[in-house]
């Protein structure tokens, strides 16, 4: 496999010169800690006014100094103001566009502002912020572009329905076959991306409804190196999973079709 060393684009230096204002520096430019690369946490949120505040507080406690960008996906409640009052930057989409679109908005923003590392998290408190550090540490290593937090690598407290677990196992197995490495949790929304992977996620390659096993296979085919690390995930009791109900059948159909065409498409490895 081709190895790539990551370089911070030249233009990021330019930006620090132009944007001399303090607020811009803290929100967009400054890295989390001195000597660390520019990092951003992106959290897509839809009607999460109850959970988002606590999630943001815990993140700020566990990993202070990392700017947080909440993408408010056309919520009808006060998600935006709650997130703002907790010190996060908020991008509000004019209407509900879906998880993938909201998430990609964060990647596009990060790519434009030349962030070196992007962490994506869920807004419902399912992901434990104390794993953010592990993700950042892991993604900074050589030969890794994407780190996926897997709930199945370690015996955690995560409980889910049989159907959901079966889906994750099946698509994990399919992804493992095409990637030539073990993928245990392709549905995980707790990931860290670095450099080229951020630009890749911001490109037209990104599956806009919900990125899943198909996107992991796609990244692998484009020469991005994916690695899984164990993370703690809590079940979110008050929220219905996006793979529930009548959407399940569409999800299974979509994933099979998407994986099939992903494998058929010709790839230009740059």
């Amino acid at each position, binding site marked *: 496999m081709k190895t790539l060393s990551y370089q911070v684009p030249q233009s990021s230096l330019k930006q620090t010169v132009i944007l001399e204002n303090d*607020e811009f520096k803290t929100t967009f430019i400054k890295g989390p800690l001195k000597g660390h690369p520019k990092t951003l946490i992106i959290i897509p949120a839809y009607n999460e006014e109850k959970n988002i505040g606590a999630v943001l507080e815990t993140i700020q406690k566990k990993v202070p100094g990392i700017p947080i960008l909440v993408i408010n996906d056309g919520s009808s409640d006060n998600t935006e103001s709650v997130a703002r009052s907790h010190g996060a930057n908020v*991008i509000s989409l*004019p209407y509900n566009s879906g998880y993938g679109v909201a998430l990609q908005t964060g990647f596009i923003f990060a790519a434009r502002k030349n962030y070196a590392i992007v962490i994506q998290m869920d807004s419902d408190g399912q992901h434990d912020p104390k794993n953010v550090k592990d993700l950042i540490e892991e993604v900074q290593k050589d030969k890794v572009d994407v780190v996926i937090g897997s709930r199945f690598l370690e015996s955690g407290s995560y409980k889910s329905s049989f159907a959901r677990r079966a889906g994750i196992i099946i698509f994990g197995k399919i992804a493992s076959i095409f990637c030539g490495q073990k993928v245990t949790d392709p549905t995980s929304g707790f990931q860290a991306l670095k450099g080229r992977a951020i630009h890749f996620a911001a490109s037209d390659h990104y599956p806009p409804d919900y990125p899943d096993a198909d996107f992991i296979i796609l990244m692998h085919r484009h020469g991005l190196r994916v690695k899984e690390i164990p993370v703690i995930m809590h079940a979110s009791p008050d929220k219905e999973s996006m793979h529930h109900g009548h959407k399940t059948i569409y999800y299974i159909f979509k994933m099979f079709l998407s994986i099939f065409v992903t494998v058929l498409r010709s790839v230009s490895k740059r």
Partner: protein
Amino acid sequence: MPPKIQIISILICIFLVAYVFELVRRKHLSEEYSMGWLVTGTSMLALSVSEGLLKWVSELVGATLFTSTLFFFGLLFLMVICLHFSIRISALTNQVRKLTQSIGILDLEKKTLESQIRQPTWQSDSSNMEQL
């Protein structure tokens, strides 16, 4: 072909073509989307008017009834038009998605710049402000 169905078919086709022209004239339908309908209308009209053509086409596709040839091609054209629409809708969805994302990002940047301008440290820097 029974003359009754032939007359009905001709009338429907003439109405369709005329109506599509009228819609384009009033700019209710763009030229791009009128293409499919005009091709469908005129071909169906040609098949309905000319019995020789209908006979030839029926033999070509192996239809025993002339009317089923008409239905067959009517359905075929509709399928093509529907597929064309699905493709266009996919493209439009994509464009709307990109617009949505851009608007969201621009809005955040706008708000950040506004709060920058409101800050007193900037207001004291009069040389910059006067240029704005």
